[in-house]
């Protein structure tokens, strides 16, 4: 009950920005930032530091966890100007590990699998039209983003077709974006009308 009222009042405070900037909106904004930071810290403490560092160290006497703990603490050295060099060691370690893990996965999933799909034989019937559109869209957009040659002649024509494919893609994305933003508004209005004012049936 109290939670619903607090949520409803904060929702109205945020919506008040639609009229113009005001202290109620800023209050809700600052409260959100503070509460989020506090919640995040508590969850990270409970779900990351306790099970991954504290419990293995105190119950399992696993001293290996001190290495990642030290690397993590070294990251915080950036707070002081003189300590930024120490933080770089941790960052270098992180970048090295992350690159090794991410690059093969990225190449396989985003490049090779997509290239294989673009080059596969077209199916029979109307599905071939869809495959042809994807194939020509792929080539023409690549032509548009190839800047080592001037966009003239055949290359220029391909690049211009690529622009149309890009415009269609941006239009589809914009349509979906409108839908997403409206969905957020609908959910808030549903909350206000149903949970707070009890106008809508639950």
């Amino acid at each position: 009950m109290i939670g619903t009222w607090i949520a409803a009042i904060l929702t109205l405070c945020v919506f008040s920005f639609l009229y113009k900037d005001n202290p109620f909106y800023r209050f809700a904004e600052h409260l959100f930032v503070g509460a989020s930071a506090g919640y995040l810290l508590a969850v990270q403490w409970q779900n990351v530091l306790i099970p991954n560092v504290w419990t293995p160290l105190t119950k399992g006497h696993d001293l290996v966890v001190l290495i990642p703990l030290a690397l993590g603490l070294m990251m915080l050295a950036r707070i002081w100007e003189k300590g930024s060099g120490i933080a770089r060691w941790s960052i270098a370690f992180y970048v090295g590990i992350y690159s090794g893990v991410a690059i093969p996965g990225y190449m396989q999933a985003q490049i090779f699998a997509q290239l294989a799909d673009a080059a596969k034989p077209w199916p029979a019937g109307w599905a071939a039209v869809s495959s042809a559109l994807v194939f020509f869209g792929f080539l023409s957009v690549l032509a548009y983003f190839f800047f080592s040659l001037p966009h003239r002649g055949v290359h220029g024509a391909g690049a211009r077709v690529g622009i149309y494919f890009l415009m269609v893609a941006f239009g589809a994305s914009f349509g979906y974006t409108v839908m997403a933003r409206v969905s957020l508004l609908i959910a808030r209005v549903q909350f206000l009308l149903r949970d707070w004012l009890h106008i809508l049936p639950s």
Partner: protein
Amino acid sequence: MTWVRRLLAIDRRIIFLLVAAGVILPLLHPLNLPVTVTPRVKAAYEAIDALPSGSKVLISMDFEPDIMAELMPMSVAVLRHCFRKHLQVIAMTLYPAGTGLGERALLQAAKAEGATKNKDYVWLGYKSGFQAVMIGIGENLRGMYPVDFYGTPLDDIPMMRGVNSYRQMAMMVNLSGSSATDYWIQFAQGRFHEPLVVGCTAVMATDYYPYLSSRQILGLIGGMKGAAEYEALIDTIGEARRGMDAQSLVHLIVVALVIVGNGALFLSRRAGDAGGPAAGSMVR
């Protein structure tokens, strides 16, 4: 062309009121517009529906309150479908604030379908580190999650006996509003070849069409519309279907405003009106 100038200088707050009316009126007086099911959502439904009873499904609900409007109804619909098919759900989240939301979706779906904790589903909760968790599950689930969210060791949970990696899971469903989906595709699907179904926000949906074509994902549920389609497929009326009338009406308003705004701007330029639109106008 005074009326054109007036139209271009219209106060934005009038548009906000129009949109508010477009949302509130259909919620109060539903129009019951039909929800047509797209092949992408149907593919997601059929992929889950084809799993034999008792199969394990890993569902990662990687979202926070900012996008729960889209992903919460989707999560509940997918979970209800799994429980109705007697699939055993292993649920988790990779977002700190997703802990409460994922648990809420599970409890809501379990209550609706009569599913019970540790028999039909297990809630692993939040774990930090996207890629590390995904790879960790593929190699040793218990190394990542020795206990569930409530502190029960996985070995003590009946449905988790013998489950220690993707190999014992029939499918994975990722419901996300972030780059987490990319990582699930790269690491869980790409590296461990786990069949994957994706549910995402509408903003992200077009980004994942290529993966559908390449069969890296088996189905795609996009935004509130996708969630409404899924609700229609499992024959329930949830939050998403209730919101679709408002969604459709606001879309009509937005389309009308785009046409009117562009038409007015075109007429204004044609009349040689060099003056820019007033502050707070539609074309700002």
